């Protein structure tokens, strides 16, 4: 349970949502989208944004009905106590799994591009410990942390890709609209999957100052994320070309490696850029970790969520160490992606319907 003064404002919630969504997905997104839709990948991003917005709006509607209840309490009240309990457990599992996958992808990128000989355990544990340190302070300090760090990665990212302008060949994105609609739709689904993360607000929603502006939160955050992805995909594809983007494991990082800074102070700046990306990963990891802890606290109706933070630590760590290689990791990623359809869309949708039915039924009584 959250303390009474641990509330976040609308703007903080927007920052929280954006920071949660943007993270590890950035590294692989251009590959997935070009595989799905070739040069039309940017259309896929926009379509995916629309899908993500729909699911975010559903979640937002559910949040407005909380009325001061926690997520689990609300679920229990409309679907019954056992179902509410089950949903809580599933969400907690999903959040823990998301943490693990985020950490694992992160450590792979770091090992590949920055610290070749550093053990994976060190990379994962250090970031997890920091996340532990942050979320123990509660929701509001976490949101404040997001707000402070947003301009840092935003400015760095926008500026970094501008340096690739001279290498970019925007004709790579031509011709438009050559992809068949079924492929476009399928591609936009995978784009929408990389916009998963809004569901943390389902559990963090209890900490909102006011639920009046939840739709604004959904709209602004998903719009920002879509714009960022659009920017990213357009630059990556036009620098690397469609075919090469499909081939590379982490196309975004390869674009960053090709950047040369005018002036000649530094030669290759992918290491500092990846370091800034660490901030983005951290701001994805922490909300998931926090959501997992608070969900479990809500299940047990505990007064203080802090005791569940260390309890989750080993689970996240061991899960993140489980995949044996990149291929296995890829299948895990797909699994979590598919789960996010369930947790970001299906369950909120069921709750929306159930809540409406219950409200109507209650009125007619």
């Amino acid at each position, binding site marked *: 349970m959250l303390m009474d003064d641990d509330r976040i404002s609308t703007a903080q919630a927007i920052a929280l949502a954006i920071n949660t969504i943007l993270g590890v997905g950035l590294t692989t997104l251009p590959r997935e989208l070009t595989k799905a839709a070739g040069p039309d990948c940017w259309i896929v991003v926009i379509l995916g944004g629309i899908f993500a917005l729909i699911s975010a709006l559903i979640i937002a509607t559910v949040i407005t009905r909380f009325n001061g209840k926690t997520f689990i309490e609300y679920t229990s009240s409309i679907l019954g106590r056992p179902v509410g309990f089950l949903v809580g457990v599933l969400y907690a599992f999903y959040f823990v799994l998301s943490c693990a996958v985020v950490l694992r992808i992160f450590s792979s990128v770091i090992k590949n591009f*920055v610290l070749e000989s550093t053990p994976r355990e060190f990379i994962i544990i250090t970031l997890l410990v920091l996340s532990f340190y942050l979320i123990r302070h509660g929701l509001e300090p976490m949101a*404040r942390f997001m707000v402070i760090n947003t301009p840092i990665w935003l400015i760095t990212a926008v500026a970094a890709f501008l340096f690739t302008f001279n290498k970019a060949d925007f004709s790579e994105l031509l011709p438009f609209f050559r992809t068949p609609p079924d492929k476009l739709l399928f591609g936009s689904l995978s784009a929408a999957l990389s916009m998963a993360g809004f569901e943390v607000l389902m559990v963090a929603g209890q900490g909102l100052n006011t639920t009046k502006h939840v739709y604004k939160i959904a709209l602004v955050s998903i719009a920002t994320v879509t714009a960022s992805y659009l920017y990213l995909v357009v630059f990556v594809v036009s620098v690397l070309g469609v075919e090469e983007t499909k081939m590379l494991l982490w196309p975004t990082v390869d674009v960053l490696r090709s950047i040369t800074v005018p002036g000649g102070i530094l030669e290759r700046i992918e*290491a500092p850029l990846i370091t800034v990306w660490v901030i983005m990963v951290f701001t994805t990891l922490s909300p998931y970790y926090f959501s997992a802890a608070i969900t479990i606290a809500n299940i047990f109706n505990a007064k203080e969520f802090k005791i569940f933070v260390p309890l989750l630590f080993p689970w996240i760590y061991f899960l993140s160490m489980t995949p044996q290689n990149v291929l296995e990791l890829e299948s895990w990623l797909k699994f979590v992606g598919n789960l996010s359809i369930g947790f970001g869309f299906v369950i909120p949708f069921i709750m929306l319907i159930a809540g409406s039915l219950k409200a109507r039924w209650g009125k007619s009584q």
Partner: protein
Amino acid sequence: MGNIFKTLFNRKKTEIFYERDMTPDKSRKLYKDIDENIKVFNEYLADCDDLISREFVVGNPNGPKHRMVLFNIDGLADKKVVHEEIMKSLMLFARQVPLEYSVGDKFFQLVKDGLITVAEVRETDNFGEAVLAVLSGDTALFIDKLDRGLILNTRGWEKRAVQEPSTEAVIRGSRDGFTETYRVNVALVRRRIKDPNLKVQTVRLGRHTRTDVGVLYIKGIANPSIVEEVLKRLNTIDISGVLESGYIEQMIEDNYLSFFPLLRRTERPDVAAACLLEGNVVILCDNTPFALIAPTTFFSLFQSAEDYYENWYIASLIRILRMSAAFLAVTAPALYVAMVSYHPGMLPTDLALSIGATREGVPFSTTVEALIMMLALEVLREAGIRLPGPIGQTIGIVGGLVVGEAAVRAGIVSPIMVILIAINAISSFAIPNFNLAVAFRLLAFVFLLFASVAGLYGIILVYLGLVIHLVTLKSFGVNYLSPLVSFKMKRVIDILVRPPLPFIKERPDYTKPLDRKRMRDLRQDQESEGGDEDADGR
């Protein structure tokens, strides 16, 4: 047995303070008999050789005579005032007092209202107050056959004159600094803010030192909740002595584990006045020239008094310079170590080669090299402070130039490392707040260690930890990182740019001032009026 009883009895008698809040024990009343009073007073201050007691007789040679006694502490009371304004008045002028006034209460009133030419005179009927007053530099006067005494303000001791503050020198700005005397310090602030709303609340702290601690704020600007919080925290201090405002700082700060200063300190009355006008609370402490300012934010520690006296672009430029200096002070060695040992690809080839060439023959790793140099510099700095002025400079030259040069020649450190550590140290001296500079130097070591373990990733880990720590810090309920956490762009830009004065129309909002408006722009009003006239004319 009797002895023990006597000791106990005596102790009870000489303990003048019951309460922690330093209110004197008023239960022990004065006697009518002056001999009894002298005896008890001397019991209180037994074995205090600096006590001066003077018995004398006052009165008309033909009329009634009054025995009087006065007590004060040698060195604390102003002798000239005692001689001229008390003794002389009583012993010479009292002779001309008409007979009908020279008895009993009437005489007491006359002495109080008409004879003593000291500005501040208080009455007392107990020993507790009298003893405390005497220990503070006042003079206590007892008159025979009266159970009331007078406390005369004769405070005047040898004190340091108002001088230019040594730690916060400015190029432009007033040259007076706080001194060790509480009242002088309050006066220095009062001279700048001639407003009845400038309130001064004094509390006494320290069971033995009974130090005057003043809480200054401007009523109507300062948020009462912050003032109350400051007073509440001051009242929780129960310590044997307060010798410097540092004691108070450490007792009332929100998080004593953090090495960031959670209270700003200043030696300059103009800074104190400026902060009061922004809605802060200033804590002045006797015996120290350092005032404390609460609440404090991280970015206010980067400000210097001059920022608001100089032209806005100079001030803004300097502000940005200070920020860059802070960045270098914290990360310069760490970045170098990370780049050289983990990410050599980042460096341009020529630079990487030249660094490699200069490191030829250096037996240590870059980390050890950096540690050696940083530690040597810290020792030099400390040695320079302890030694008297000219020798301190010599040490700086010998240590910095001669040893540095020799170390490079001997191949112990590379010249680039010397340059880097020098930049690092100079940057840390560019930060106006000493505590913050020390915190940054400590952080530089932490960053260096992590950079040597995990390169840039280590640096970003420390950065994340640092930001988490700063985000959770509060100073008197105010976010330490404000205004960065707010969404008001205007405030956020203030961190780097000091806007031209006509544009700073509002007080900063971190102090939650009652009155936000700082300025009314009359010029603008006139212009808009003029504009209206023009419009009418057309």
